[in-house]
């Protein structure tokens, strides 16, 4: 992993909030060189995660959202070039020595991966896997660690925790495995919880339960959460603020109510409009965004969304910077109209 640090530009994402940022990303970039092509998986991202908040990061394939998470913990694939800055409570994580990153992983910043089946070792019992990291990080004895593990299993609403500790992953259902992953993440009482599509592989009824569990845990422990997903439905009940990513860049950052109610970026607006919903009457035709998600190795010079945007204009050949608006939102778009103007542009297509 090669890291190139640049001088950090003075971007101020001044949201009217005095809470201290736990995590600060500045101009974060993750680039891959593959088969003579340059892939900018993450291309200059500025984000902050504050204490006790849930920040949602939503995007589709190629948006860079998963790469962002991996970069935070130094887990990017070999061959990734990182640049920019990742500060955790002021400490620079990008390029930090491996020992330091390993000390932080699991203990202060924990991650829950997407596919519980592949994230769990099929040859070890749940108990072993739960206590593995905790024993080292918290210096716990075996019995204490298992007791704590059992406690956490009941916190994540798994019945008969003591017996479950002796089970192997394949003996549990998908929903239970996901809960185990959450319990694993919580073993060391981290300050920050990173979630990479935690409910995507689950059935909708189980998803509702897991989301409910996550909400409860957050209320109880106050852990800050970074929730990465493509599912705007799931985020609605979880996130305080949401960052919408496209082609490795943040295109809109707003509070949940602001984003769902009045999205300003054409992509965000288009995405919300194209979701079929049970709570609204059936449309005559489901709106959709034309074209396809961008090829990261072959991005257009200016705004990456321009080829699909109903509001495209010649100034879109210049890449729009993420600007902070008076109401505290951030937007990366040249168009400065209202949300109804954006909506009208989509309806006109």
């Amino acid at each position, binding site marked *: 992993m090669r890291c190139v640090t640049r001088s950090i530009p003075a971007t101020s994402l001044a949201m009217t909030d005095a809470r201290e940022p736990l995590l600060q990303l500045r101009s974060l970039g993750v680039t891959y060189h593959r*088969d*003579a092509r340059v892939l900018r998986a993450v291309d200059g991202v500025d984000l902050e995660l504050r204490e006790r908040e849930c920040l949602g990061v939503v995007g589709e394939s190629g948006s860079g959202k998963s790469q962002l998470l991996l970069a935070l913990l130094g887990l990017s694939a*070999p061959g990734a070039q990182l640049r920019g800055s990742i500060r955790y409570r002021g400490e620079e994580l990008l390029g930090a020595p491996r020992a330091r990153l390993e000390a932080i992983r699991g203990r202060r910043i924990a991650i829950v991966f997407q596919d519980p089946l592949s994230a769990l070792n099929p040859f070890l019992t749940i108990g072993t896997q739960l206590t593995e990291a905790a024993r080292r990080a918290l210096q716990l004895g075996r019995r204490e660690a298992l007791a704590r593990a059992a406690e956490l299993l009941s916190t994540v609403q798994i019945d008969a925790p003591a017996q479950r500790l002796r089970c192997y992953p394949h003996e549990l259902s998908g929903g239970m495995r996901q809960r185990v992953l959450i319990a694993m993440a919580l073993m060391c009482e981290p300050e920050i919880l990173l979630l990479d599509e935690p409910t995507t592989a689950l059935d909708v009824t189980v998803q509702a339960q897991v989301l409910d569990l996550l909400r409860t845990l957050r209320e109880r422990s106050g852990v800050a959460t970074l929730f990465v997903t493509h599912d705007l439905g799931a985020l609605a009940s979880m996130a305080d603020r949401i960052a919408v990513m496209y082609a490795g860049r943040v295109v809109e950052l707003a509070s949940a109510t602001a984003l769902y109610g009045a999205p300003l970026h054409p992509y965000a607006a288009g995405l919300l409009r194209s979701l079929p919903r049970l709570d609204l009457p059936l449309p005559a035709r489901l709106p959709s965004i034309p074209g396809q998600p961008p090829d990261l190795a072959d991005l257009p010079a200016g705004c990456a969304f321009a080829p699909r945007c109903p509001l495209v204009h010649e100034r879109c050949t210049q890449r729009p910077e993420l600007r902070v608006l008076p109401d505290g939102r951030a937007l990366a778009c040249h168009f400065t109209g209202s949300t109804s103007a954006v909506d009208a542009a989509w309806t006109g297509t």
Partner: protein
Amino acid sequence: MSGGLWQQCWRRLRARPSTMIATWILALVVAAALLVPMFSPFDYATPSWTQVFHAPAFAGGHLFGTDSLGRDLLVRVMWGCRISLLVGIAASLISVVIGVSWGAVAGYVGGRVDSAMMRTVDVLYTLPFIPFVIVLEVLFGRHFLMVFIAIGAVSWLDIARIVRGQTLSIREQDYIEAARALGVGTRTMIWRHVLPNLSGLVAVYATLTIPGIILFEALLSFLGLGVHAPLASLGSLVAEGTNEMQANPYLLIIPAAFLATIILCLNRLGDALRDALDPRHEPGHD
């Protein structure tokens, strides 16, 4: 048929210097093996009692020296390369054709047919190869062709097993099910869908089988069962050289060096092919 995948493979192969070096060396050896005997004043069979055991020297025209019968070693080594490579490639092709057909049918059809076919492979595995080759040669005479048939007949077993394994996993792929839903029959399925998807694996194993076959042939020749005099393979040359090792080590060292080089280069190519065809492998990071 699959231009896209092979182009990507070629690009990856070109990216690594060691692979290109191996390819060039191999190309040079093949070119020399083909051209040198055509232009050399000496041939591989004519003995010359006056030129016996000349050490390698520029003067006198014998670049690699001469052997116990005064025959020019350079030409003999070049012929040796020709024979070894020919046997290697031909026998490899035979074993690939048999092995792939056997393995693909067994793997795709499954059930009792698969069991029967693979039990046959298991039984053939237990066959001691050298006595088998001896029997073949006794029955059909020591014809040159016998050598590749014999080797091909025993080398297909490995490929059959590997191809069967790969076919089993190909069979579970969605596109096979999609083709079945379309109504494609078994024979067409194997020909159109299974075999092309095996091509990467087969290319790698074919390349990696050749060194093994060359060594096997060298062993046979060493034992006197391979090519017969005056034709030479690298193996028979090594055998002759071993006899003269004390006094004239060059008779052993030169053919052995060529044998080792060819095998190393083929192994390198085979490994590189395997990496290049693996969709997950990142070039430049091993």
